[in-house]
């Protein structure tokens, strides 16, 4: 026995009201007759013929009270529980990944799933414990073991579509850990893919009607002379061949279009040639409609190939000079230590010296520092072979080992971090002084075999990429949902990100910039760095990751486990008595009407 809307009981106030009305019932009109002798006789005759005459006087009152109670019960959503399985425990898993935005179920798979989930929760016996989990790129527990249906329903309603695919491992790990905490709990999955959660039994509600979706899964470019050549990868996720129109836009102006035929479940590479190199952004879009419009576009930013200006201050270091000149887009200037004005470069490399005053407009790398006023330097020590560390300058250099003959004995200043050390002596340190990043190598390159290693140019390239800020503002390719960590110019005062939907989000101050997480929308973003002289905009693109294949393979679309129930029993286990109650109330009212019309005595 349960009540869906206990607020209906407010209607019980009608009962005292009816009684009050009977107490204050309408005064009858007085009619004088010559004598009551005959009337009394008639009335007593009538009474004698009614067996329940005692009740008779109040019958209508009783009927009205019963009717009021019936209507109140109906309003309160009175229902009878056929099975007494109160206190069920369920984990409701709702997939809000990109594919759930498909419109093969109107208005979208996610909307339908949310609606069904709300109904499912509604139909659960009272006191059921509901844990609500949303899965997508991340798996989140939105509500843990709540008995408040309203709270759960509100939370279900608040689930928004996301732009990533389901990270199956994360989802499985989370759901299983929840399940382990309460082994009797039941897993209910609302998704378009029947994910497995270990070997647990899952009630699965399927929201996939069609799969005729075509997506742009890759988009990149190379600059060849005066032209740009772009490559896009289009995947047909459907089970039938697709013939589609694909268009290329440069700075949102139409550039080119192609008809492409892609066999079922295959990807095709589409090349775009002779794109003028004066454009800053490109977009490739599938023009043919499909069930999921969100993945029909991919974006690419053509980074400005402005040269990075590097000043090398050395008495002569052929290794460094050679390695720096090899890097495309680096404008190298070499100078001797006598020079005192360091200004106008993106990166300053000091070999064998540390300037008294650090430059203010670029980062600094120091090799073999002599004693100076920036950090304490001692004598020399011998060092055996060392390996790479996890720092960005060792990117792609996991297996690098090199030998160092001798290295300076350094003391770590407060502002620095040690990247590499030997016996407690820092070999490589990094830190920020003012707004300037400083990288310190304790050894002289001539005292090591590092320049002889094939990895040396890569190390130097990494240093330029990491420390020449203009180049390193956005280094990694971003996918929706990723966190962007910006390396701001040293003179930046404020920084904002302009999102594709027109919002401006502040990321700095504080400096260094806060990680930017608002990358759910694929498209072209812009980082605006404001300094004393003006502002500098850097574009970057955010695309949908190509994880569809991964999601598909993990979902086990072929051969669903026997333990899977492919439909959720949405049938209400409680029998709602609303209609019978209302019918009974109407019947009583009709009887009352009939009785009133035929009665003779009140």
């Amino acid at each position, binding site marked *: 026995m349960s009540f869906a809307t206990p607020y209906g009981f407010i209607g019980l106030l009608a009962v005292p009201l009816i009684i009050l009305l009977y107490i204050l019932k309408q005064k009858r*009109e007085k009619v004088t007759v*010559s004598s009551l002798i*005959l009337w009394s006789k008639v009335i007593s005759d009538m009474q004698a013929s009614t067996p329940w005459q005692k009740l008779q006087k109040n019958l209508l009152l009783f009927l009205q009270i019963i009717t009021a109670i019936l209507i109140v019960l109906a309003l309160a959503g009175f229902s009878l529980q056929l099975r007494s399985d109160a206190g069920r425990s369920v984990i409701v898993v709702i997939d809000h990944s990109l594919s759930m935005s498909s419109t093969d179920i109107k208005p979208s798979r996610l909307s339908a799933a949310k609606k069904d989930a709300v109904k499912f929760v509604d139909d659960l016996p009272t006191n059921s414990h509901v844990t609500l989990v949303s899965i997508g790129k991340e798996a989140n527990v939105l509500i843990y073991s709540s008995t408040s249906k309203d709270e759960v329903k509100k939370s279900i309603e608040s689930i928004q579509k996301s732009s990533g695919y389901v990270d199956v491992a994360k989802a499985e790990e989370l759901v299983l850990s929840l399940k382990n905490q309460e082994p009797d709990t039941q897993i209910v999955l609302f998704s378009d893919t029947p994910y497995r959660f270990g070997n647990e039994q899952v009630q699965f509600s399927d929201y996939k009607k069609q799969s005729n979706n075509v997506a742009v899964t890759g988009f990149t470019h190379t600059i060849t002379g005066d032209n740009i050549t772009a490559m896009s990868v289009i995947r047909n996720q459907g089970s039938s061949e697709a013939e589609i129109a694909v268009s290329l836009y440069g700075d949102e102006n139409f550039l080119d279009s192609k008809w492409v035929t892609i066999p079922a479940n295959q990807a095709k590479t589409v090349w775009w040639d002779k794109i003028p190199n004066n454009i800053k952004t490109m977009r490739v879009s599938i023009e043919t409609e499909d069930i999921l419009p969100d993945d029909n576009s991919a974006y690419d930013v053509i980074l400005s190939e402005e040269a990075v200006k590097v000043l090398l201050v050395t008495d002569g270091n052929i290794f460094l000079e050679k390695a720096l000149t090899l890097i495309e887009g680096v404008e190298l200037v070499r100078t001797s230590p006598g020079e005192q004005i360091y200004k106008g470069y993106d990166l300053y490399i000091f070999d064998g010296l540390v300037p008294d005053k650090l430059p203010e407009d670029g980062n600094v790398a120091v090799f073999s520092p002599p004693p100076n006023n920036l950090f304490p330097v001692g004598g020399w020590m011998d060092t055996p072979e060392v390996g790479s560390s996890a720092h960005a300058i060792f990117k792609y250099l996991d297996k690098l080992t090199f030998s160092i003959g001798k290295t300076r004995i350094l003391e770590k200043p407060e502002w620095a971090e040690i990247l590499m050390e030997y016996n407690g002596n820092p070999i490589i340190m990094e830190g920020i002084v003012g707004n300037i990043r400083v990288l310190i190598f304790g050894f002289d390159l001539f005292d090591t075999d590092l320049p002889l290693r094939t990895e040396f140019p890569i190390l130097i390239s990494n240093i330029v990429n990491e420390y020449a800020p203009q180049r390193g503002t956005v280094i990694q390719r971003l996918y929706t949902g990723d966190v962007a960590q910006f390396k701001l110019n040293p003179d930046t005062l404020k920084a904002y990100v302009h999102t594709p939907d027109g919002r401006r989000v502040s990321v700095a101050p504080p400096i260094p910039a806060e990680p930017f997480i608002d990358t759910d929308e694929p498209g072209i973003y812009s980082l605006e760095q404001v300094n004393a002289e003006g502002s500098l905009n850097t574009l970057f693109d955010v695309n949908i990751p190509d994880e569809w294949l991964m999601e598909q393979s993990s979902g086990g679309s072929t051969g669903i486990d026997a333990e899977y129930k492919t439909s959720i029993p949405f049938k209400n286990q409680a029998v709602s008595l609303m209609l019978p109650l209302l019918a009974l109330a109407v019947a009583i009212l009709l009887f009352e009407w009939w009785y009133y019309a035929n009665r*003779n005595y009140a």
Partner: protein
Amino acid sequence: MKILDNDDLRKIHALSLQIRMPVSGQASGNRKSKSKGSSVEFSDFREYAPGDDFRRIDWNAYGRFNKLFVKLYMEEREAPVQVFPDMSMSMDYGSPNKFAAALRLAAAISYVSLLSYDSVYINPWNEKVQGIYGPFRTQSSYMKVDNLLSGLMASGKSNFSDALRSMEWKAGRGISVVITDGLLRDGLEEGLKYLKYKNQDVFLCMLLSPEELSPPLNGAIELVDSETGETVEVTVSNALLKKYEESLKQHMAKLQEQCRKWGIHFAMLSSDMPVDLMLKSVIT
């Protein structure tokens, strides 16, 4: 104000009460009396006895039978007509008003009685007889009767039997005309029996208003008894009205049956009847 206008009087002038039995009375009237006397209407013979008026000896009989016979004559005496109009509150009801109709009927009966040289007594009653007015013997005294009746006002409850018992009776037969609605808590039977016991030739005039015969009531109402002030709540429906009419009919039928048994003239009247029609209904 006159109870009967000239037109009414003209209509009832010709009517006279027809009664079945002779009555006794003191003044000579236009009625056959049981007492044999000196009127012109022959009644019987009987043998002469000393002391008889020998002028009444039938000499022809003596010639034939050689015995003295005296002729006996029916003495015509006036019939005392007692009119009992019910003046209880229950009579002051209806449209036309029952009490007014009762007074008109009483006036009409008085009028025709006076025309027949009968003496008339008017005995209005409710719980008791509120006065014995009369005798009125001459036609000219009708005006007095009219005046008397027009001065009467309905009041009080009705109790016929008590009323009759409280009244002084003169010996002898007579005519009693009871005008009532018959709606008495204690019934009429006791009173009627008493009248018969007093050797009265009784005329019972049951006078009801059209509203009582067929009540124009409907819906939820509170009925108030005009005499006692008692109330009863009633929701009037067709079924109830039907039941009421049946009950009324039964009540009348029972009364009529009793009257037939006791040799009482019974007349069922409605207050909307013209007075001559009422009179005719009573007489025939």
